[in-house]
């Protein structure tokens, strides 16, 4: 019974990484930018929740904070990312590494280093029992919102003309250009989406995680692991990898090997890279070969 609960919890746990990892994967796939600052946007989302909540409540912050983070993301995309689309990914990696530090220090200057308090809104507290499995009501809501966003993103990428251009841009940007479509506005939109999702994750996790300036660092590494395991350019690969990572971690704790639960994720990544260097469902992207 406990193991079943741990498996279920592990499956759900993966959803947190998903919101971060999907954005990372999208931005890298289309622009070739390895966005190490993604965790910083997550942290900014969490801090904005604290700023907006007294005026808008948690519900209002749920919209306002990710939108603000997305706008900030577009600004950064316009000013910085746009100069690095055609260059070696190592350069954008250095840039975003620097951005991440500036953002963390900025949060420290504005809000102070000690973690700030924020609790689950009263309406979302309590437990729900689903077929004998008692689980936090807040997490059920969290997973519902995250799942909805993932589904909406999939529909956007698969079923709209916007999505078709983005997917074509991932495969062959030159051909898209030859067809007379400028990828520039699409890049801005993808940055807004990806970074906005990171902001949303920040809002959703602020009530249950300590809100502090370095919180982005805590989530960025597992998110990268998820992207690597899932494979670049693959939507479902990232989804599957996020769930797999959550599952492996949860089960390791469940069976009494908690000390090795983090190491297990890296071991999983190692195995995947050994046998499927492109990731579980990684697509072949011509320009990265």
């Amino acid at each position, binding site marked *: 019974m406990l193991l079943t609960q741990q498996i279920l919890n592990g499956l759900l746990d993966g959803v947190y990484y998903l919101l971060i990892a999907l954005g990372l994967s999208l931005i890298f796939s289309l622009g070739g930018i390895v966005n190490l600052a993604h965790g910083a946007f997550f942290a900014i989302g969490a801090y904005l929740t604290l700023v907006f909540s007294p005026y808008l409540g948690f519900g209002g912050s749920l919209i306002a904070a990710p939108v603000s983070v997305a706008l900030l993301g577009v600004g950064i995309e316009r000013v910085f990312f746009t100069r690095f689309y055609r260059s070696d990914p190592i350069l954008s990696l250095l840039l975003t590494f620097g951005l991440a530090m500036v953002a963390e*220090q900025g949060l420290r200057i504005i809000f102070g280093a*000690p*973690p700030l*308090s924020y*609790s689950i809104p009263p309406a979302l507290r309590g*437990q729900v029992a689903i077929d004998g499995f008692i689980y936090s009501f807040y997490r059920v809501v969290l997973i519902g919102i995250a799942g909805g966003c993932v589904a909406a993103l999939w529909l956007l990428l698969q079923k709209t003309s916007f999505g078709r251009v983005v997917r074509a841009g991932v495969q062959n940007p030159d051909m898209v250009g030859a067809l007379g479509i400028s990828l520039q506005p699409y890049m801005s939109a993808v940055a807004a989406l990806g970074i906005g999702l990171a902001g949303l994750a920040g809002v959703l996790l602020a009530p249950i995680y300590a809100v502090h300036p370095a919180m982005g660092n*805590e989530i960025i590494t597992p998110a990268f692991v998820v992207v690597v395991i899932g494979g670049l350019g693959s939507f479902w690969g990232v989804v599957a990898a996020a769930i797999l990572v959550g599952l492996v971690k949860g089960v390791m704790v469940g069976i009494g090997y*908690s000390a090795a639960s983090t*190491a297990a994720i890296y071991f999983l990544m190692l195995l995947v890279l050994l046998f499927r260097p492109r990731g579980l469902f990684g697509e072949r992207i011509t320009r990265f070969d």
Partner: protein
Amino acid sequence: MSHHDNFTRRRLLKTAGALGVASGLGAPSILRAQSSDVMRVGHLTPRTGFLGPLGEYAVMAVDLAVEEINASGGMMGRKIELLKEDSVNPQTASTKAERMVERDKVACIIGEISSASALTIAQVAQRTKTLFINTGANSDALRGSDCKRYMFHVESQNSMYVKTVGRSFLRDNLVKGKRWYSLTADYAFGHDLLRVAKRFMEANGGQFAGDDLVPTDATDFSAYLLKIRDAKPDFVAINLAGNQVTNFLKQYAEFGLTFPVGGFGFDTALAWAAGKGSFVGTWPCVWHHLVDTPASKTFVAAFTKKYGKPPENQAWGDYIATKIVAQTVNEIKSADSTKIVEHLEKGAKFDLLKTRPGYFRASDHQLMHEMYAITALPENQIKNQWDIFTSSPAVPGPNEELEVIASTKEENSCTFPT
């Protein structure tokens, strides 16, 4: 900020970021000439990383202490010039300590929170015969196998934390014949604390229902919470560190678990971060802002006036350490580290803002002083974001020796290297 020419790229980027924010300010180029009318004191503590939040309180407190000391005449008539640095990690801490001693000629070094960094600073202190006062590192080993003649400890050792809060657990009948579930941070501090906690449990007839090591980068505790719920322990014992305590408390409340909670290592900043409704349990503290003595109230008022929020226990440590150094130098009319060490070893008494003065134990240089066990207030009794707990009376009680909560020679023995 310090003005060392430490132009690593990280520092450069940080500086660039800071300058971007404070645009319009001129470059802070201060030429520091060696002069005889100031006395330099080094302050080293982690200001980034998972101990950074506590380090910030340490820095605020040492600034306040130096301000007060300088306003009342300084040390031997000379003003204190404070050199402050982020100790980052054990290697960097050691390098920076060495530079403070060799190049900047500091009279002593105060600070640190990480037990690992405290050890490397102590090695520099011992080699260069410079006084180092540890204000935040807890491990018993620093007062035992790794003890140093030039290192003194204002921070309590793990044994003192365990014995202090252990009294509350014994009083509340949470030990004898009870089953505990413990979560322990998987690094030196956690292991040391778990060892001391297990000794306490065995001596008092308790046992463990479960015992998990938690990786230091773990942020989600749901898997552990399901295990705890399933094990139905009588008590949940937390040996976590830093933000992990906050994460745990928030998620413990989220999952609606109601087993009594407590821990052996704690900082009030973590309680404040968990906040009303999430902060539960009973925890040990070297000091807290509600300690009811006139001296404490004066300190809290001065700190709150300067920074807009009350000090937490780490602030007390660095504040008191700085005051101890100034008082000693003024009393013995010398800033020579060896002379200070001799004076402290003789059992000099110091006002610690508590009900009775304290002293350093000569055998291991641990400050003997009163501690407190704090207990979270029920949500409906909380009036503001800071006063969210009640405190036990000082431990040990007025009729006991201060040493009763410290480790015995058998538990932890120190032989100073010559």
